């Protein structure tokens, strides 16, 4: 394997970009995400080597935690086909419940020359450590040996776990993962009111509930309707090439014998891969447990409906900070490393900051709540048109106390922001949406469409087909002749988010150290994923 970094010519970069976009477009237009993992409270893990796949075609020699035997179970139950290989990056997400005594049995299956390995559980107090040999930070498993850690999952929240042995090499090689502690008692308000309405809206469309719980903490302000786990890390391929070469050169050596160890230079550090859940864009938007990534089972592919409270569980697993920018709205930080941040004067109130860029920090986990609604756009995001002959263009909007249409759980426009209902955006639209608004859109020939462009400024297939003159039957517009299976032309021929399929609002969630949205010098790539807000008629299925 070539240990030197290839320098890409711009023409090549752009060719690859085109190829990667084309690859992304070949994917089925389904949605996948959630925070999958394995359940305990006893986990039998192993640390082993394997190769992980990157979208530039590289297979990078890495080390990861995996399941030594089949786990007790997988969660969430709605995701079928879950696996836990013997090596994966990140390691298996350990899902436990507050108050449980957690036992982790770790077997060291790394090459003998890699030496000992271990796991740190920052934020937990170990109640016992059994077996292994003494290390600097914790008890370690010698090559071929085992060690057992036990602790009580005292408080809820998301936390990191990672190797406590020669971390500059072992964490870089991939020995890290997440622990999710679910609250023992979910606050009552997380299953009533809007939480119940949102569940009813899901049920109407046959959507499954992919949550691990209904609340992130034992706190009434921590309810959520959907959740995602993102682990950020970076990789310097030179370190991995060195480790691979040295392990091969010392194959068969005896533990403790002279020379049976690695001497990998981990400085100077020049990472070229920037990963979310062990994958680079566009691989991160492929399904969980996709067969093409046998050692990278977890994806980064968030979807949501308007108004849903979305829990983000985010961990910095590398050695660098990464400014994770969530397009679309702010994130309320609930807590860090399982420590809920509350008001000094009122424990029922949150005090964590509201951020549009949530920096990931080495070893630190945070939980945050994000939502998206069309509030404040000053135009009807659904393009409702009271003058239309199409019934779905004339839906009503009955505001609740907060101004949203939340009583009609079966309606396409459930959670519409009613203050802008029927309010036009375009002065003179060419489709079946209202006119008289403030702006004129340019001729579609003057702009370039993106692969995740839903096809119109409006949300959802119903609105987009109307806006582009592609409504069915008597409402067919003058452009109906151009309306094909992939949507309407003009303006769009997109497949990733087609006008007749998903037609969601797509938002880029990415590192704002923009050089990190590249894969080994190729743009786009790296720490980047598209978050889609979907109108209710699109069924978000995180199971495939």
């Amino acid at each position: 394997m070539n240990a030197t970094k290839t320098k890409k010519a711009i023409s090549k970069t752009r060719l690859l970009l085109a190829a990667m976009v084309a690859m992304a477009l070949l994917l089925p237009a389904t949605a996948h995400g959630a925070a999958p993992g394995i359940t305990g409270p006893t986990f039998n893990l192993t640390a082993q080597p394997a190769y992980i796949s990157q979208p530039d075609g590289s297979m990078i020699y890495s080390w990861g935690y995996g399941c030594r035997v089949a786990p007790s179970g997988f969660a969430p139950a709605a995701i079928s086909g879950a696996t836990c290989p013997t090596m994966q990056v990140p390691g298996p997400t350990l899902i436990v419940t507050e108050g449980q005594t957690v036992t982790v049995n770790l077997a060291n299956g790394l090459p003998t020359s890699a030496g000992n390995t271990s796991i740190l559980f920052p934020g937990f107090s170990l109640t016992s450590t059994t077996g292994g040999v003494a290390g600097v930070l914790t008890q370690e498993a010698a090559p071929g040996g085992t060690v057992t850690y036990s602790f009580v999952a005292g408080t809820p929240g998301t936390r990191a776990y990672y190797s406590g042995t020669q971390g500059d090499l072992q964490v870089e090689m991939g020995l890290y993962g997440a622990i999710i502690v679910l609250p023992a008692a979910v606050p009552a308000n997380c299953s009533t009111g809007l939480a119940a309405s949102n569940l009813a809206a899901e049920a109407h469309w046959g959507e499954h509930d992919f949550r691990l719980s209904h609340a992130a903490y034992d706190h009434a302000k921590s309810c959520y309707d959907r959740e995602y786990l993102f682990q950020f890390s970076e990789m310097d391929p030179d370190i991995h090439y060195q480790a691979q070469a040295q392990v091969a050169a010392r194959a068969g050596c005896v533990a403790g014998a002279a020379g049976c160890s690695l001497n990998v230079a981990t400085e100077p550090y020049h990472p070229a891969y920037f990963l979310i859940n062990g994958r680079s864009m566009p691989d991160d938007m492929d399904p969980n447990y996709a067969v093409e990534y046998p050692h990278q089972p977890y994806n980064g592919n968030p979807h949501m409906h308007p108004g849903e409270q979305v829990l983000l569980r985010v961990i910095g697993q590398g050695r660098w900070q990464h400014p994770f920018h969530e397009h679309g709205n702010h994130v309320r930080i609930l807590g860090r490393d399982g420590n809920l941040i509350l008001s000094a004067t009122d424990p029922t109130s949150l005090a964590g900051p509201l951020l549009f860029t949530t920096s990931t920090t080495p070893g630190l986990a945070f939980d945050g709540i994000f939502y998206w609604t069309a509030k404040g756009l000053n135009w009807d995001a659904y393009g409702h048109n009271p003058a239309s002959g199409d019934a779905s263009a004339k839906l009503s909007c009955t505001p609740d106390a907060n101004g949203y249409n939340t009583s009609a759980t079966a309606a396409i426009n459930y959670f519409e922001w009613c203050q802008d209902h029927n309010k036009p955006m375009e002065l003179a639209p060419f489709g079946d949406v209202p006119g008289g608004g403030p702006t004129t859109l340019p001729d579609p020939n003057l702009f370039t469409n993106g692969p995740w462009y839903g096809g119109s400024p409006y949300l959802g297939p119903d609105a987009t087909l109307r806006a582009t003159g592609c409504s069915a039957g008597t409402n067919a517009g003058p452009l109906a002749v151009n309306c094909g299976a992939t949507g309407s032309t003009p303006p769009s021929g997109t497949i990733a988010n087609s006008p007749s399929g998903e037609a969601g609002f797509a938002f880029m969630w990415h590192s704002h150290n923009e050089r990190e949205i590249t894969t080994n010098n190729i743009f786009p790539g790296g720490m980047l994923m598209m978050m889609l807000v979907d109108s209710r008629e699109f069924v978000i299925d995180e199971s495939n």
Partner: protein
Amino acid sequence: MRKPYQICLLMLLVCLVPAVASAQSFRVQCPTSTITHPTATSNNSEPAYAGPTYAGTSGYPAAPAHVNGAIKCQQISGGDGYSTMGDGTQTYMFSFGPLSGISDIANGLPGTEFPSVFNTVTPGLLQPGDPATTGITYNGAVGLVPDRDALAAGSCTGLCLDGHVDPRQIMDVGVMNGNIPAPLMAIDEDDEFFLTLTNVGMIMRPDLFEQHTVHFHGYPNASSFYDGVPDASVAINIGASFTYYYLAPDAGTYFWHCHITPPEHLQMGMVGQLYVRPRQNRATGALYAALQQQQLDLRTKCDSTTDILCSNPLPAVNTGATGGGKYAYNDGDGSTAYDVEYPIQIHGFDPSFHFIGMTFNPEEFADMKDKFFLLNGRSYPDTVTPGPLQTQSADGVNHFSQPLPTIINIPAGKKALLRISDLDVTEYQTLASIGIPMNVVGINAKLLRDQAGNNLNYNTNSITLAGGESLDVILDATDTTKYPSGSVFYLYTPNLDHLSNDAENFGGLMTEVHIN
């Protein structure tokens, strides 16, 4: 030095696009009235805040209970240009430049204008490099002319300013007029903002048929259509215009940038500043009562029990503060009051990447390394040079390339608001204050306050931001014993290797605070 074939190619592009499209390719939009702002004569100034725009839950088509805010318009070019670094190096940029408010921009002000200013016809012919070339004073939309076809057809009367522009004026002024930072934008809550991006092409890189976009970074509940991400929306081609439409979001310090190939276009200079002033600036009487009025409009209320993403509930303590001043946020207690404000944008340039960007060479991203560390596009000592910096571009004409100095002038006994944003694409940047504490009142365009109404502002002498972050700092010089007239303080970076201008071991991310 332009090569003749480059000019030909650009002209070909400009001519071809209209031939394909039925509509005019360059145009501006700045309506004098809208549904939200129905009375044209009232939209050229900010009216006092008298109460909720919509009371209760009824919205359109109900008439506004009170018309708040006004209409604001701005035009920018997307293209290229040159700037001058602290060591004198002339640096190539992909960049935005002003195509409205060109005199205001040259004076360090926002290029955001009311319709009455924006919709004025260019006085005579503007020259390449203007306003630097002729010193002309003009703040309207560059290129705006009567639509002669419509006049002849009788479809409009009077001035017939319908957004029709003269492409020659757009190209004369817009080509190579790039600024760093990109044109400053400032709007008030309740404004409707019409932002026209005109893509004039990058004349030094005719091999690139690049679109550009505007990403209004931090806009809450954004539509993906106007979010400026080309993958998720549309992007305007060379030789045409796209008008972004926003209702001003909650007050705060935002920023904006191009979202095409971000590691390239941001590093190359397509980054700018944008802030939203609070409703509270327009309130008279008690600030607490004014914030209570804002609770009556569901769009502007902040109820912490039902909305987890709002940051300005009523303050825990009614301080009895009254309005009439300037504030960073709708605080209801005057805690974010200030007297003078300075937008400061942190950025970094990697000179080898810029050279590669000008010379058609392969670009590397992973090892990008900034060598110029910029406050508002300048390194020390240029940060304290008053007035606009100009740079001669490859067209042989001087352009105002860096209009914004970063001299913080605080009248003795007063407070300055620093609206700090960072768009560095490679690393975190720290800015420290020597001698005068930084009071952090807002982060990421949100007031620092908990859900129970307790203010969480804090004093520090050092703030650290990543690219893609902003915060609001108040330098409080009200103690004239500690901060007497004539004293000078420094803002500088303790990232000590950033106190340099490429090879010069001097300069970098540093500026001065003067108590006047």
